[in-house]
């Protein structure tokens, strides 16, 4: 029925009243001529009915034949609405203008919002955006979000990220502030650069201060390499300016290591057999969820991996997943020849020295010598020559008093 109503609305229909002596004949004639009538109601000597527009134009002969008077009560449906609109052009123009105005208004930015700022004042961001062309009243298509983002970032260095987004007529500037490293005041504590090791200086690079050594000099641990005293005579009487010495001093340094290896040794080796166990640790209780409690090896090494289950914000639940891997070990009796023992000792000593080298060190030479070979053992000394940074800043003993040492 709803479909009918829609159809009647679209095509348009009339409510008519028919006044005559024989409404029955009127109806019958209409039916014969294929004029469709519906919702027919008798109202005293009159009759009301709905009729389609097409039917209404055919009704005149019927009305004449039955001597009935037909009057239109109501006009319903889209065609009439349109016709009315056609007559009232102003209304149509108004509606269109309203639409146009709405559209036009959505082309402008009405509001600029800033989100995400904590320290940077909103006004500063809005001001930066304004200079880049984003402000309330700006024409939307003339605002280039990318450019605005860039301009904001350039203008306010505290911001690490900015995004401009249009939500309807509102422009939203999303920003993230940069966490600035604490402004480190340049350390001006006076002091010297002092040698950390004995060696032969290979390179001196002074950024600040005065070099006391030059290439080829031999220095001993504790020697001042670069002084913060700018005047040569500063040490006696006259106290010159005392600054913080800065610089790099590289030197050839000899590192020694001694290693002894017994010709007969007991060594623990992995057999390759492993045993896994998984536990959950809740508080102090451990629950084994995989593997046995008893470890089936007499000798073993264990590798433990711990995983905190949840680490949310700063809450650490006292629950841990522990995965243990046991490696079976076997004790092997090793016998070296003297040569082998020497090689092993050299390798161990060299490894140890290399581990202890400071960063940026360059190994120049490695020399080894058998120092002692006794009953069942070999003692080896390895000398490793490296070029490395030996400078270390030492603040002056009377740091606060400038040139305090000069009084003596």
């Amino acid at each position, binding site marked *: 029925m709803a479909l009918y109503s829609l159809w009647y609305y679209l095509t348009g229909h009339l409510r008519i009243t028919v006044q005559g002596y024989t409404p029955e004949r009127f*109806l*019958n004639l209409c*039916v*014969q001529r294929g004029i469709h*009538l*519906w*919702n*027919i*109601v*008798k109202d005293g000597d009159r009759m009301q009915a709905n009729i389609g527009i097409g039917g209404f134009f055919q009704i005149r002969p019927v009305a004449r034949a039955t001597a009935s008077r037909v009057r239109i009560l109501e006009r319903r449906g889209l065609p009439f609405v349109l016709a009315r609109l056609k007559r009232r052009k102003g209304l149509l123009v108004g509606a269109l203008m309203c639409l146009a105005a709405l559209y036009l208004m959505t082309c402008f930015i009405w509001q600029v919002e800033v989100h995400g700022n904590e320290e940077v004042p909103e006004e500063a961001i809005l001001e930066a955006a304004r200079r880049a062309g984003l402000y309330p009243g700006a024409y939307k298509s003339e605002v280039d979000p990318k450019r605005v983002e860039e301009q904001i970032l350039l203008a306010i260095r505290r911001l690490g990220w900015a995004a401009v987004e249009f939500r309807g007529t509102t422009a939203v500037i999303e920003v993230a502030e940069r966490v600035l490293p604490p402004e480190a005041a340049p350390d001006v504590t006076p002091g010297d650069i002092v040698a950390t090791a004995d060696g032969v200086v290979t390179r001196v690079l002074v950024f600040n201060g005065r070099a006391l050594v030059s290439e080829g000099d031999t220095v001993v641990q504790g020697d001042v390499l670069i002084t913060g005293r700018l005047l040569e005579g500063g040490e006696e009487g006259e106290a010159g300016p005392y600054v913080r010495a800065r610089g790099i001093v590289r030197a050839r340094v000899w590192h020694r290591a001694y290693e002894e290896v017994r010709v007969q040794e007991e060594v623990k080796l992995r057999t390759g057999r492993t045993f896994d166990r998984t536990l959950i640790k809740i508080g102090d209780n451990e629950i084994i969820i995989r593997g046995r409690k008893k470890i089936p090896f007499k000798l073993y090494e264990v590798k433990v991996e711990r995983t905190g289950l949840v680490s949310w914000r700063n809450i650490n639940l006292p629950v841990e997943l522990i995965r243990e891997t046991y490696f079976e070990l076997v004790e092997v009796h090793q016998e070296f020849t003297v040569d082998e023992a020497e090689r092993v000792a050299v390798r161990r000593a060299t490894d140890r020295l290399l581990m202890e080298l400071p960063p940026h060190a360059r190994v120049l030479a490695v020399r080894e010598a058998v120092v002692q070979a006794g009953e069942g053992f070999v003692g080896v000394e390895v000398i490793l020559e490296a070029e490395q940074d030996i400078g270390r800043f030492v603040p002056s003993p009377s740091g606060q008093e400038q040139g305090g040492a000069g009084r003596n």
Partner: protein
Amino acid sequence: MSVENHRGIVEYSSERVVIAVSEGHLVLTGEELMIGFVYQEEITITGRFRRVEFCR
């Protein structure tokens, strides 16, 4: 109420509708009787019916 294959409306008022059918008349009495729609072959009458009679 819908009547198919009718032969036309003989009498129509809000209390009484007489529809011609082959071999006689269908007399409907009631209140606020209304003809929902009329087609050549079908007629639908709504309202509060009191009596439906068939007269030869």
